[in-house]
């Protein structure tokens, strides 16, 4: 039981930390940095899933995170390439 | 059955208005005469309003017949072309209202 609680609260802490980091962390004016920071909440959520034993959801979530990251990076790179100010 | 009666009232009102409009264009050719009372219209109006408001007095007619007839006559005056039929209507309402009040209060 203790292990599960450790995972759960670690997950909670990571999610909150990561969110704060993403919103007001240093250097988040750069979209790449911001996307990298969103990985922390993703890992935190994975831990919460794990502590509830939502393992299948966890598997799907890991795969989906990779894809979301790819999509966002693609958008950022393309926009940068265009020189768009967004 | 209530609604059928009301439909008849409305239709007779509408028909009266249409007829009144047509007649008034035939009869009057000056636009918008303000201070002039047409005696024929006055009589029609008074008769119409009397029939509408005091249908109870005319015991020989079913009330819906007298009211629809009255509404037809009322509309004939009320529906005249702009500027006509206003004073007539007012007189009609006044007279028949006085009669109605007199009858109900006394």
């Amino acid at each position, binding site marked *: 039981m203790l*292990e599960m609680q*450790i*995972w759960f609260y*670690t997950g909670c*802490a*990571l999610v909150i*930390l*990561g969110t704060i*980091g993403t919103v007001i*962390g*240093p*250097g988040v004016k*750069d979209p*790449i*940095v911001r996307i*990298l*920071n969103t*990985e*922390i909440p993703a*890992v935190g959520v*994975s*831990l919460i899933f*794990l502590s509830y034993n939502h*393992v299948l959801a*966890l*598997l799907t979530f*890991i*795969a989906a*995170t*990779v894809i979301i*990251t*790819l999509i966002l*990076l*693609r958008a*950022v*790179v393309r926009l*940068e*390439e265009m*020189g768009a100010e967004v | 059955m209530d609604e059928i009666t009301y439909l008849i009232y409305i239709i007779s009102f509408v028909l009266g208005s249409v007829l009144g409009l047509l007649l008034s264009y035939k009869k009057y050719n000056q636009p918008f005469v303000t201070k002039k009372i047409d005696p024929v219209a006055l009589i029609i109006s008074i008769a119409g309003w009397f029939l509408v408001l005091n249908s109870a007095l005319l015991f020989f007619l079913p009330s819906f017949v007298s009211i629809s007839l009255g509404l037809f006559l009322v509309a004939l005056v009320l529906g005249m072309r702009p500027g006509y039929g206003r004073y007539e209507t007012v007189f009609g309402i006044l007279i028949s209202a006085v009669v109605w009040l007199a009858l109900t209060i006394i």
Partner: protein
Amino acid sequence: MNPLDFINLTTISAAVMFIGAAGIILLPKPLDKVIMFALLQGGFISTIVAARYLDVALVAAIFDPIATVILLMAIIKINEIRGKKAQEEDSSA
């Protein structure tokens, strides 16, 4: 209770994850962040191992390098674009 009992896979991986997270947030350069991200992922995978779901750990371990590669490629590409832009501005100025 022996304090050393607290040193097991669970607590260590939690600590590793925290270090990784702090690193990602605080380090300024994207490439450093990617390295810290690998640390975070490592901690995460060992947590899954501590939960004894080996198949999940396996998949997470496969996805880890993929995510890293995607991030790296994006960073390299964007650096290239920015470098080129800076050059253009220099030459035009």
